[in-house]
């Protein structure tokens, strides 16, 4: 438990992805089975201990600590588990109970026995261990480790390709001993689960100049839809919908699962579709990240699967076939399933790259974000290989905005003001519309940092309010309506694409310009 709590302490304060991966790898190397696998499951939320509630913990604390003192402390600390971890009477004897024992007893103890068990354990732990233990028991870890990041750390630890780790992941259960054995030179575990995830084929960006070296006759093209890329699997009665990183998102999409009336694996785009109209990404976003979905939302935001590719059909693995052959199978498959919630992504007719450029410039639907270009003779390959598949995205949207606030970055950027909030004009005041952390060169970062230091009008803790004089060009991939932002709009993937020292702040864009860009 001590090693696990030390790991959580470091992860909680590590902002960089690579830093987190480094901590995880060091932990995997130093911790035996099954503790490391259980720790992994705790972090990715796959352990599923849910019986301990905040109210149970509050009641526990009130038995040991005066309620006024506890309330004053909780006010100051702001986190229940942390407050209890810190305020709990000091242990007279510390014991480093192995993580697997703690997990097992939490699992088998009936709910009525949990308060006494937790109190007993807290009595022999350090504050940092108490914190980790309470977070473990309540299941709300929030240390910024996604399943994807944990799998990446594991792949790096074993020198394994990430795509292969993702492929077997869903068949494995905590404490993942066979996975660690594989990472340490043993045999690759068999993908044992029904409806397994297959590593997704990804594209690399391109443009007209790069395409001119290629023969258009070797390629097919289709629209790039602005939803999320998914993999729909139906296998011996098990149906699953995966994100392209292998997260199982089935519970949020019962309407899609219902549609998967086949035996096979389809690669496609998940969209919200009402009648013939594809809804903007913002509508799909309302359906994402849910554990359950209400009937009302199913009706107001119906999901749709637009099929791109066929990986497995009726037990046959088609990934080795050329795209053209898979496409023919896909067309037959989609027709035979005959579900209105699933259709085919149409191929685009073009003879020359200029034809495709013209199509890309005037797509028939605003939910199209460019074109995909696929080599006809290419098999379905895991990962992002350069050559077989290209994405040629539409040009980003652009707006000229004024820098309003700045915060210092972390790691290599510590000491530099690198995180910016920018705004546009709404009448004669500037309203914040987004945040950007990148897009600028190192030299531009230095210049921006100098600007921040010389033009601070106020500081609020780590945040500096800036004299509203610096105009930047912000590029972004899309715009959603947002009730959470004062401006009413939220940008996707914003970055600072140019610093407009030539432009006075008064000539930055108006909020209305952004509103007009809304889908």
């Amino acid at each position, binding site marked *: 438990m001590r090693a696990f709590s030390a790991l959580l302490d470091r992860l909680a304060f590590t902002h960089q992805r690579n830093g987190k991966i480094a901590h995880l790898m060091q932990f995997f190397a130093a911790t035996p089975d099954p503790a490391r696998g259980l720790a992994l499951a705790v972090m990715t939320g796959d352990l599923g201990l849910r019986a301990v509630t905040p109210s149970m913990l509050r009641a526990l604390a009130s038995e040991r600590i005066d309620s006024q003192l506890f309330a004053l402390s909780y006010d100051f600390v702001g986190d229940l588990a942390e407050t209890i971890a810190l305020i709990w009477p000091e242990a007279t004897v510390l014991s480093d109970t192995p993580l697997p024992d703690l997990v097992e007893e939490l699992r088998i103890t009936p709910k009525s026995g949990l308060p006494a068990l937790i109190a007993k354990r807290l009595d022999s732990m350090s504050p940092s261990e108490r914190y980790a233990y309470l977070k473990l028991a309540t299941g709300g870890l929030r240390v910024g480790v996604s399943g994807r990041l944990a799998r990446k750390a594991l792949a790096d630890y074993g020198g394994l390709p990430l795509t292969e780790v993702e492929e077997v992941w869903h068949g494995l259960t905590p404490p993942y001993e066979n996975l660690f054995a594989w990472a340490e030179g043993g045999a690759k575990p068999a993908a044992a689960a029904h409806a397994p995830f297959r590593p997704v084929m990804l594209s690399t960006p391109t443009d007209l100049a790069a395409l001119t070296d290629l023969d258009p006759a070797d390629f097919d093209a289709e629209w790039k839809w602005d939803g999320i890329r998914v993999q729909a699997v139906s296998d011996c009665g098990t149906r699953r919908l995966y994100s392209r990183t292998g997260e199982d998102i089935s519970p949020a999409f019962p309407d899609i699962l219902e549609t998967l009336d086949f035996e096979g694996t389809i690669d496609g785009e998940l969209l919200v579709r009402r009648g013939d109209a594809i809804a903007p990404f913002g509508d799909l976003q309302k359906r994402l990240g849910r554990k359950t979905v209400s009937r009302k939302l199913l009706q107001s935001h119906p999901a749709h699967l637009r099929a791109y590719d066929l990986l497995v059909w009726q037990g046959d693995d088609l990934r080795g076939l050329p795209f053209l052959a898979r496409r023919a199978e896909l067309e037959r498959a989609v027709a035979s399933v005959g579900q209105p919630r699933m259709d085919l992504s149409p191929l685009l007719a073009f003879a020359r790259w200029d034809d495709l450029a013209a199509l890309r410039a005037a797509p028939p639907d605003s939910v199209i974000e460019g074109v995909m270009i696929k080599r006809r003779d290419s098999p379905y390959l895991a990962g992002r290989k350069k050559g077989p598949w290209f994405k040629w995205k539409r040009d980003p949207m652009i707006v000229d905005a004024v820098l309003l606030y700045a915060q210092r970055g*972390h790691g290599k950027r510590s000491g530099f003001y690198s995180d910016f909030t920018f705004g546009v004009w709404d009448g004669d005041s500037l309203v914040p519309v987004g945040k950007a952390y990148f897009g600028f060169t190192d030299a531009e970062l230095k210049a921006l940092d100098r600007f921040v230091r010389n033009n601070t009008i106020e500081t609020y803790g780590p945040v500096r309010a800036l004299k509203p004089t610096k105009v930047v060009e912000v590029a972004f991939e899309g715009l959603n309506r947002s009730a959470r932002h004062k401006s009413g709009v939220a940008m996707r993937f914003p970055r600072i694409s140019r610093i407009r020292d030539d432009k006075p702040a008064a000539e930055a864009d108006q909020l209305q310009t952004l509103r007009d860009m809304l889908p």
Partner: protein
Amino acid sequence: MIDSAALLQVRAEGLFCPAGGFYIDPVRPVEKALITHGHADHARAGHGAVMATAQTLDIMAIRYGNDFTASRQVASGQQQVGDVCVSFHPAGHVLGSAQIALSHKTAGTAVVTGDYSRSPNPACAPFEPVPCDILVTEATFALPVFRHPDASDEITRLLASIAAFPERAHLIGAYALGKAQRIIMLLRHAGWDGPIYIHGALQRLCDYHISQGIPLGDLRPATISRGQKADFAGQIILGPPSAFAATWAQRFPDPVICFASGWMQVRARARQRGVELPLIISDHVDWPDLTRTISELDPSQTWVTHGREDALMRWCELQGRDARPLRLLGYEEEQD
């Protein structure tokens, strides 16, 4: 019966002793001031006369220049000031820090702790308990969540991090008086005998500690010439917290930002400051030591100067102790 008003009163300038005609740690210039220790919010320049320990007077001269006061007097033993007998006793907070004991033949005795700590500190003399009728205590960390761990364990965590990330510099934020020298001494005791790099703002106070017999070892200025960033890989650099917001921090390779303070016990505080390795090292009493001190000294009245007095008042109430909050203004609660 104690006539407490003759001994101590709260005025706009700070804590005033009418019987002696002086202030203790006044926040504005006054005619006569007794100073507990050299931190800037307690020791200000511009008083008519200052009485303090020799080390505190030296530190004030280093910080403000030799003309920081019109006249000065070194505290030693029992000294009569007006109708009050005063004596200074080590507070264990920073070099030169003292509690001030006041004794009046009819009004009784009071001890003004200033800031104090009871955890071992190789950079200053340990706290000395002084019995009294009125204990005037600080309450910076007066919440039961504040239980400072053993400082040497925090240094062990720092050294483990340096071993785990040998390519990165470890940049430690520490206040220039007291905290910085304590960290250096803790590192020396833990066996780190290589150079420790310090920000220019720490230089004179470190030199002064060395002159007072505190062996800080090999200290080097954290300056850098162009293109030698990598020289700081695996090294320890100390700077005042203010320097972390300055361009100074930009010169080190992918630094691990550490901050040594009692506030680091609370995660949100550490995250707010962008700290990657919080080190819980405090120069103040934590909750157990604060409540233990009150219990041990068993004063008939406990006055709370600054900090989180609500929780301490509640604790006194639960203990059946007579206590009052002074709500003194002008002391920076964040400084630790």
